[in-house]
């Protein structure tokens, strides 16, 4: 069953009425429980595609469906709901809020969905091995610990899929491996659907499928 379906998705930027096409027609399907890697050189349109899939940006043309819900053409408030409920974000630079405690950071998305769930936030933190760090601020944690907090946060609203943007890019290789183990276990042990952007072919090999993006097109799909 497809969780993400993109059909002929195009994206152009217009500067002084001149069109700069970035995505030139993307067709992509990610099924439930799949772990997919997205690779491509810089300038390939990877970030733009990620923003569209993440509900942060809108496509110029084409259809984007999450779990039978048409996402293209939603208003910005409706997109906020999509990001909040359907998508769990894991960023390269963690993106935790420095003034909030670990527990507050994890609970924050549930807060915007109107269903504050501190109990679940605690459970998720203990799942990522940080049950003794609930009241610490992000700057009191190591990089690996911060990414664990971010992973816990991405799961709080039980999203349709997890969007991981180079999740180990800011970590040393040993910590990166641990984080990758955790992300792989999200798929293996919890059946989560994951779309991960990465530069690292070794990490890509841990996924079910690799998609290559070049010059605004998907050029290759490879089953690992």
């Amino acid at each position, binding site marked *: 069953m497809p969780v993400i379906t993109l059909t002929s998705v195009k994206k152009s930027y217009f500067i002084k009425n001149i069109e700069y096409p970035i995505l030139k027609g993307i067709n992509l399907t990610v099924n439930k429980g799949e772990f997919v890697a997205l690779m491509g050189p810089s300038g390939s349109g990877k970030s733009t595609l990620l*923003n569209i899939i*993440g509900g*942060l*940006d809108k496509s110029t043309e084409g259809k984007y469906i999450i779990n039978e819900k048409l996402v293209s053409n939603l208003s*910005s*408030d409706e997109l*906020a*709901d999509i*990001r*909040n*409920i359907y998508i769990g*974000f894991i*960023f390269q630079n963690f*993106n*935790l*809020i*420095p*003034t*909030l405690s670990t527990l*507050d950071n994890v609970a*924050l*998305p549930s*807060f*915007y*969905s*109107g*269903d*504050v769930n501190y109990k679940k936030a605690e459970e998720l933190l203990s799942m990522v091995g940080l049950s003794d760090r609930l009241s610490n601020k992000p700057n009191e944690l190591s990089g690996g610990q911060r990414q664990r907090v971010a992973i816990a*946060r991405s799961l709080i*609203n039980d999203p349709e899929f997890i969007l991981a943007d180079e999740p180990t890019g800011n970590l040393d290789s040993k910590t990166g491996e641990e984080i990758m183990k955790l992300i792989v276990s999200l798929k293996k042990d919890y059946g989560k659907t994951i779309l991960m952007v990465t530069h690292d072919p070794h990490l890509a090999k841990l996924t079910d499928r690799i998609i290559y993006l070049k010059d605004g097109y998907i050029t290759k799909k490879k089953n690992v």
Partner: protein
Amino acid sequence: MTKYSFYIKLFRLSWQSLRSNVFRSFLTTLGIIIGAATIIIVVALGEGAKRDIEAQYSNMSVTTILINGPSTEGSQSKLSVDDIPAIQAISTVSDAVPMLTGKVNISTANNTASFNVVGTYPNFSDVANLTYERGGFFDQTDEDDHTKVVILGATVAEEIYGTRNPDVLGQSIVLGKKEFEIVGIAKYKGGAFGPISIDESVFTPYSSSYRYILGKNGKFSFNVNAQSVDLLEETMSSLTKVLREEHKIAANTPEDFKLKDMGATVASAQGSSQTMAILLGAVGFIVLLVGGIGIMNIMYVTVSERTKEIGIRKAIGAKDNHVLTQFLFEAFILTGVGYLIGTISSIGIYFILLSLGVKIVFVWWSLVLSFIITFTVGMFFGYYPAKKAAALDPIDALRYE
């Protein structure tokens, strides 16, 4: 979860964010603190000035006209009790009280003090509305016979005998060099009557004060009342005409007397105190305005500094409205805390001013006034940065470092 507890949570988040930089939050709210305190103190000062003026003129009637000799030295005024029949002949005059006043040393066996002595006619008691602890005023016989009798004002009695109600009727007291018999102690009155303070004066028949105490050294004046306020101007011009005739002043020669309309004097004193209050109020408002701009500045800085944070919040699902509400809550908390600290400081300042003898009266509605103005200003200036924060694009905001 209810909407209600959602806002409580949002409020808590705002509070945490402010607490994470206490010193800057304090600086932000300093303008509000000073503004709120200024408004409360200004209103209290204005009220104090108003009460003071009211007390000073409390015995004055708006129908009163004071007649003095000219203040210029050397010019001898012919103003005297001899003018009374002519003044009373004016149909619009209801009463005329002569007063001869001057400083006198008052002494008993044990005590000496210096106060005003007022030589006047028996009708003074009614016109000034005097009441008595003991005894009463003198009568026409005393005036005709220039009897040496005296009525003491409340402050005089207190100063000399240690109480406002001393049991001294019939006892004698020395005014200047002559012994007078005490026949009355007036009740405390407060305020002034024409040129004198009733409580700080002693009263004797006019004839006795002239003959035994003051002579030509006394200052002579009349306290004349018109029959109604409408007749005031007419009465004043009649008085001028009659007195010119009485004193045989040739045309084109300046008068040897001055008329003063008390109603106008009171009104102008009240007017100037009100002007003062409005002026001070404007200062308070400007301080608040500057305070508000301070809030806006710092909040703009805050929004720029927290662009990344806003981006994160939006990326994980915060709507524009959530961000707007959070920043408005922060403005609200800053304003509220500023108002509270300002109010508490103003109470401190109030007591300091009070102990320094400044005439200041606290009025409860100044709290409401300062509350309304403070919050209007705080929220008005807090709104624009909040709006800016809410309108940030999440992609740009996330990329911001």
